[in-house]
């Protein structure tokens, strides 16, 4: 192990970790948005949109992110639709994560009992008020563990974006390996960087889950 090499490389990794986090943040946010839209479409059984959503979910769940990114970045460019790599990466993460979030939210919404909806209706709430005050708060509490798992999943999936030349953690490691062939040092830093990002997050989510379970909203 070359300690001075490691020390010299750390700033590169810190910068790259910034991009990884940035991509994960926007990817998660957009995924949640896409997932929520899908959940609402499914909940209200909106005719045509429901079909489109089903097609989207099947496509998203049954194809790899790497291929989605290549298609989006290299493929579309050649028919005149050009996206920047950064846009592609976030779009790809949202395309992938949206269906996972949709599933988490759907399961949460389904866990809200029929009687809850009926008593909401019986005090004269509109469909939207029902969603806003009764269904969503309870659904979210149930969906938190699944959403948390998806956040971790998406953060890890960002490692793929190095393939479309974005300078994330993976990219920096590959770069250092390619230039200096210091594989052990580069990979050690890579594993360390992901540990620093993922370990606290995963511990926090576990704590959150336990808290939610202990509060115990159910009857």
């Amino acid at each position, binding site marked *: 192990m070359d300690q001075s090499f490691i020390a010299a490389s750390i700033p590169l990794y810190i910068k790259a970790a910034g991009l990884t986090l940035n991509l994960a943040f926007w990817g998660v946010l957009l995924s949640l948005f896409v997932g929520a839209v899908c959940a609402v479409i499914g909940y209200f059984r909106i005719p045509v949109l429901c079909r489109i959503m089903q097609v989207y979910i099947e496509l998203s769940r049954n194809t790899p992110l790497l291929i989605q990114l290549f298609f989006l970045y290299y493929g579309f460019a050649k028919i005149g639709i050009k996206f920047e790599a950064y846009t592609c990466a976030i779009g790809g993460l949202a395309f992938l994560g949206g269906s996972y979030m949709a599933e988490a939210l759907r399961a949460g919404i389904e866990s809200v009992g029929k*009687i809850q909806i*009926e008593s909401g*209706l*019986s*005090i*004269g*709430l509109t469909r939207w008020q029902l969603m806003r005050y009764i269904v969503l708060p309870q659904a979210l509490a149930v969906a938190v563990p699944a959403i948390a798992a998806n956040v971790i999943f998406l953060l890890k999936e960002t490692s793929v974006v190095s393939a479309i030349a974005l300078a994330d953690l993976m990219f920096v490691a590959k770069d250092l390996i390619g230039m200096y062939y210091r594989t052990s040092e580069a990979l050690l830093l890579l594993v360390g960087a992901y540990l620093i990002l993922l370990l606290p997050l995963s511990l926090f989510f576990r704590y959150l889950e336990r808290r939610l379970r202990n509060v115990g*909203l159910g009857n």
Partner: protein
Amino acid sequence: MKETEKILLEVHKLKKNYGNKEILHGIDFSVHRGEVVVLLGPSGCGKSTFLRCLNGLEEIQSGSILLDGSIISDGKAEWYAIRQKIGMVFQSYDLFPHMTVIENILLGPLKAQKRKKNEVEKQAAELLERVGLLDRKDDYPAQLSGGQKQRVAIVRALCMNPEIMLFDEVTASLDPEMVREVLDVMKELAQQGMTMLIVTHEMNFARSVADRIVFIDEGCIVEESEPEQFFTAPQTERAQRFLDIFSYEN
């Protein structure tokens, strides 16, 4: 003229299907203002379904429902607005678990009826006081017993100032020792002149609280009479058989 003026809820030839199966075969029925009507009948006879139709929770296939003389079942009126005038309490587990008792009660009046907060809070406190639960107003439903939950559910419905209250087997899933506290609240309500439509299996309660008993079997109203007559000398064989089962159980 005077008779019809007093009619609050009217049902004409109501039919309800589940798939191809007809559950209710053209029900004609009415409730006068201030009247307490108890619906009796064997399980699966359609009495709960009937109650749910009145609140728009079940779609009806034909017939009409009138509240205060105007049709509410033709799809033109908005159910959410009508439901504000029809209070309903269910069998169980219908409080919103993520809200405290007081939040449960305030939700409808504030969001659906858009009333002023301090006015509703005052009313809610009075109602909670009446059912003896004012000290529990900041508790979550999970901290209450079954009987307490049902009393809160009744208050939640009452706080909307409904014109009529529907009770769908509200004591059916309670432990025996909690049934009484809920029935007492309902009885008090009846004495204060609230119009009530009650589905129950508590025969003694039905006898003491009802102005009229409506006996339903296999999706039809078989018999309508005053409680004393119904329980002592039912007119139909089916009602007799139904009562026999209960007297045997008791």
